[in-house]
């Protein structure tokens, strides 16, 4: 993470007891880890937990002072495997990643860790990327907790609650010898709030101390017969210990009146949404004082049966607010009531949607319906029998009108020319099967490129094309993988697999020097010098080491001609085996972060600097927009001319252009039109620059004059 400084955030990690912390949720968790005396932290970046990694990466000094080991893990599996340090040693450890994608990757290590159990508190912070703004498949982390029998906390989304949850998690883990997952959703991670800090604590045992006095215990290793004993131990010892801890420490919370005919059971993360619905109905006040009893599950797994049954005592019906599916909690609770012979009705997915995020409206509708059906007496008249249920207006016209605005490549993105070249080669050689991967480059599936048929997981682009390897085929498959995915998993699962199975396809490795989609963290092949990490390991070397014979390296992706020619060669060469093209150019977002302040400073300091920008000659542009069908750059847009002779808007490049060169290169490679120009402004020109410019402009001016004096010149009035 060379291009952004988190110095301001790092300072917040130093706050001592009694001081007020103010900031984002995910940073509060980071601070809480240090307050809990964590001994080591690892993880894999990804929204919404990237910030935890980024800030810790910049907090080397604090970590050093406390004796905390921090690692940017190679993958979520690595991060979870790292928690093995808490198996034999009383060291608290934490791993973090995005879920469920990360949990999927981690599940091998997670299952092994959960089987043997832990001595030191082992915490996994999962950023649940579900609902609006999510970039992954919609699944729940809950299933992982259940299948491996690790405990799952889902705290109320405010800073004091999530900080307390981190503390509880470590203690719960230690009390039950079981790893604990702490689930935080996107908005909770980005929520801005306050809590009162405590002093940071040195770990009870540091990793250095552990290394110096190694321990082992065969009983904790996953191999028969220990593994069979582990399963029994989970059920007989660890589970009851966890339930006792959750009950005795009052992890779950009760709000509202003790006696009522109905109640609501909810995941901690749903608390604010439920309160808002009750506020709108008129059954809760500003501060969350509610007239409907709430049973808030800050621990969603395991459930505390007697606690739940106690809550149901005397109630006719209970609503379970559980986001996503399957509705594990609702099913479990229905079973508990049934077995205990209760008559209380469980209402859940009848009034709440089975699939999709519980947004404000969904929550309001669901809770209102539940109360209207089960406790109409509580409701104010207008909710019980609303006069105007539908405040919404007819927006069907507008829906057809307003264009979608999906995410896409940033201005000047070096991946854009790779896909422009791919589109051009497809115009030449026909359509191919294209396998995509996870990362910014997945935006290729959107207009204007519309390239790519599947995405199967991080680093699995080429692997997902492995079936398409047939001697009978006349075309090769093309697969993409980013540098992030390449190092995460792709080197073995994709490249190694292709070499071993003699795959004949074309593999493009998109190398932009960072794990860009997750916020620009450094990875092995990053070009920057990193204080605490080893970088500058070329992808080409790794690929060759894996056994690939046909490797081409493009050092400037903006060279669309070269990119297209290399693709053509890869698709047509008689050589067999995988054809790997490594296309390298720096992520423009990070490059701008790095270079812009330096350039501005240099210009102010009187240094000679050249700043490029592209432009369009609007009288040469015919408004066919061919360039935009090969670009999609935010800075290249359409503009209406003040000229009734022209029906269609012309191309226009706005001030945000960073002069990457894609427009000109594409115009050349696709033989578009000569309306693009590149303007390089030389700031603080030298004497020679100025002298030559002066002479040239005089001569050019003379030539222009000569001609313009002999023709009619139209000057706009």
């Amino acid at each position, binding site marked *: 993470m060379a291009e952004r400084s988190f110095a301001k955030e790092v300072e917040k990690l130093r706050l001592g007891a009694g001081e007020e912390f103010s900031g984002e949720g995910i940073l509060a968790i980071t601070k809480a880890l240090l307050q809990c005396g964590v001994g080591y932290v690892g993880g894999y970046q990804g*929204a919404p937990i990237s910030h935890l990694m980024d800030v810790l990466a910049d907090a080397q000094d604090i970590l050093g002072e406390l004796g905390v080991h921090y690692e940017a893990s190679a993958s979520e599996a690595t991060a979870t495997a790292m928690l093995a340090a808490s198996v034999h040693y009383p060291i608290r450890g934490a791993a973090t990643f995005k879920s469920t994608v990360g949990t999927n990757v981690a599940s091998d290590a997670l299952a092994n860790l959960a089987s043997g159990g832990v001595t030191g508190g082992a915490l996994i912070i999962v950023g649940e990327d579900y609902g609006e*703004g*999510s970039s992954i498949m919609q699944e729940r982390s809950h299933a992982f907790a259940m299948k491996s029998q690790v405990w799952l906390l889902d705290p109320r989304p*405010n800073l004091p609650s999530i900080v307390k949850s981190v503390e509880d998690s470590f203690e719960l883990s230690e009390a039950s010898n079981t790893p604990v997952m702490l689930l935080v959703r996107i908005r909770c991670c*980005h*929520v*801005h*709030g306050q809590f009162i800090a405590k002093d940071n604590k040195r770990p009870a045992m540091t990793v250095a101390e552990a290394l110096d006095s190694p321990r082992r215990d065969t009983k904790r290793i996953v191999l028969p017969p220990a593994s069979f004993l582990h399963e029994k131990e989970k059920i007989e010892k660890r589970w009851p210990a966890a339930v006792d801890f959750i009950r005795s420490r009052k992890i779950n919370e009760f709000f*509202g*009146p*003790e006696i009522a005919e109905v109640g609501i059971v909810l995941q901690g993360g749903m608390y604010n949404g439920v309160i808002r619905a009750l506020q709108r109905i008129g059954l809760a006040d*500003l501060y*969350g*004082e509610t007239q409907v009893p709430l049973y808030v599950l800050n621990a969603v797994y395991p459930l505390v049966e007697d606690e739940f049954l106690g809550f149901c005592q005397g109630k006719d019906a209970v609503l379970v607010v559980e986001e996503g599916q399957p509705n594990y909690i609702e099913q479990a609770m229905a079973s508990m009531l049934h077995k205990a012979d209760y008559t209380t009705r469980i209402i859940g997915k009848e009034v709440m949607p089975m699939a999709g995020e519980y*947004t404000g*409206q969904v*929550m309001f509708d669901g809770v209102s319906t539940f109360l209207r059906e089960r406790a109409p007496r509580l409701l104010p008249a207008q909710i019980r029998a609303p006069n105007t249920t539908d405040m*919404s*207006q007819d*927006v069907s016209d507008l*829906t057809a*009108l307003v264009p979608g*605005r999906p*995410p*896409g*490549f940033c201005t000047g993105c070096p991946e854009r020319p790779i896909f422009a070249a791919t589109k051009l080669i497809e115009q030449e050689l026909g359509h191919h099967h294209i396998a995509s991967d996870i990362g*910014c480059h997945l935006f290729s599936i959107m*207009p204007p490129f519309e390239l790519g048929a599947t995405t199967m997981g991080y680093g699995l682009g080429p692997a997902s094309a492995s079936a398409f390897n047939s001697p009978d085929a006349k075309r090769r498959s093309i697969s993409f993988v980013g540098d992030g995915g390449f190092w995460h998993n792709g080197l073995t699962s994709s490249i190694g697999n292709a070499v071993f199975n003699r795959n004949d396809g074309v593999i493009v490795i998109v190398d932009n020097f960072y794990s860009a989609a*997750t916020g620009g963290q450094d990875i092995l092949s990053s070009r920057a010098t990193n204080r605490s990490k080893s970088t500058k390991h070329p992808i080409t070397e790794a690929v060759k080491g894996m056994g690939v014979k046909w490797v081409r390296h493009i050092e400037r992706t903006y060279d669309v001609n070269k990119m297209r020619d290399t693709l053509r060669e890869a698709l047509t060469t008689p050589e067999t085996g995988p054809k790997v093209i490594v296309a390298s150019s720096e992520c423009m977002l990070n490059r701008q972060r790095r270079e812009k302040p330096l350039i501005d400073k240099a210009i102010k300091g009187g240094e000679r600097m050249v700043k490029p920008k592209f432009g369009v000659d609007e009288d*040469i542009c*015919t408004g*066919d*927009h061919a360039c935009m069908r090969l670009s999609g750059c*935010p800075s*290249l847009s*359409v503009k209406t001319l003040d000229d009734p*002779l022209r*029906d269609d*808007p012309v191309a226009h490049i706005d001030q*945000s252009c960073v002069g990457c060169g894609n427009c*000109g290169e594409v115009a050349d490679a*696709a033989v*578009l039109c*000569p309306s693009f*120009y*590149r*303007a390089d*402004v030389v*700031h603080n*020109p030298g004497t020679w*620059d100025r002298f030559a*410019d002066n002479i040239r402009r005089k*001569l050019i001016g003379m*030539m222009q004059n000569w*001609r313009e*004096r*002999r023709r*009619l010149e139209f*000057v706009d*009035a």
Partner: protein
Amino acid sequence: MADQAPSTVPEADRIIKLAVLAVGGQGGGVLTDWITAVAEVNGYRAQSTSVAGVAQRTGATIYYVELCRDNGRQPVFALSPAQGDVDILIASELMEAGRAIIRGFVTPNRTTLIASSHRIAAISEKIEPGDGRAPSDQVMAAAKGSAKRFISFDMEQMALDAGSMISASLLGALAGSGALPFPRETYEEIIRGSGRGATASLKAFAAAHDRAKDVEAAPDAFPPQPIPSTPNVKGPQQLLSQWQSLNARVNAYPELVRDMALRGLCKVTDYQDVAYGTEYLDRLDQAVKLDSPGYALSLSAAKHLANAMCYDDMIRVSDLKTRSKRDTRVRSEVGVKDGTVLRLTEYFHPRIEEFCGTLPTGLGRYIESRPKVSAWLDRRINRGRRIRTDSMSGFAMLWFIGGLRRWRRSLLRHQVETAHLQHWYKLALDHVSQDYALAVEILNCRRLIKGYSDTHVRAFSKFDRVLSGLDLVKGRPDAADWIRRLREAALKDEEGTMLDGALKTIASLN
């Protein structure tokens, strides 16, 4: 606590809910932070959330803030906006305002909608070969109907004028709207404290603040239609007097036609010479003669004849790129300041087709009819060339090619273009007597021809395909309508897939 009613909330203590709909990269996060900070200095508690991440890159993004007067106790804030429950909605672009309305975040009983009226075209709007942009006026109308108050003006331009980002002018509009109970100075104090670019931000803030205060008194009207301008003409006396006589011919046209004809005349004269202007008017006369009040035919002819006569060849491109007014325009667009030096690179990719087009007709045809010679030459010509027009050699080369203008009439491209033009124009005029509307539509089909090289070839093919529908619809009362539909379909996508579909529909009509 069983029967305790929720404490009645005084109006001043309710939660104010504010959502920002922005396009990734517009600084929605900065705006949200500012609003939160302003609330806090005014003794409010505030909570902001967003869904940052990859989904944000250039895509539509929502930021959400809730604020409430601080009474020493933490209220429970929600983490996302709900339909029908938003007090202030800030849209950083007009279509985002439309999206907010669709999502139900704008309601007539409570929402103050603050929206910048400028457009950022979405990809889908940009990639159509025609004009794919969504009509702004319908969103404007919907916004007026949906919001309790609607404050809208071009906040992007205002920010640019101040050298700042739209987040500053959006904050200004919010302050000026008075929708939040905070004094102006507190906003300014927060901006001042944000460091870099604060001066420019304050300028944008102030402009938007003042405008927002006035906007309800005098709601933002649509920009007035530009008044047709009579061009200033400079040149040698002899040419000027010739020009005057052409001008007189235009003035003799019906008033409705004059403006378009004059613009066309300027365009073709500028393209070639006064004689070419005469040719243009001679052609246009034919349409005017056949026309009747309403003058749709003459207007279409005036527009499309000019465009057809000014085909894009190497001479035109070179000429336009070497003019002094182009130099001035580029310098102002790029923002070249005194004391800096501009270097200018042009991207050309000539092919054998363009080369032959610039040869005398006979020679050009000779080469074109010999594939081997063509291929041999193409190998030498067909590659990208970057020409520095700030350098003497690059400029001189283009200047020279631009000078071939005087021989243009004898070159191959001119023969081809003129033949095509005559065929098309005659086709249209021949239809006037039977079906006036159809004749106009045939003229309008000229709009399809644009682009260079492959795009140009495709455009020609679409033009031919549309006119191939002519025989199928001729004689039908709705023939003109069908041709218009075909043309619009042709402008929808690059390959003409929609057009082929429309042609099939027509074929099934009979």
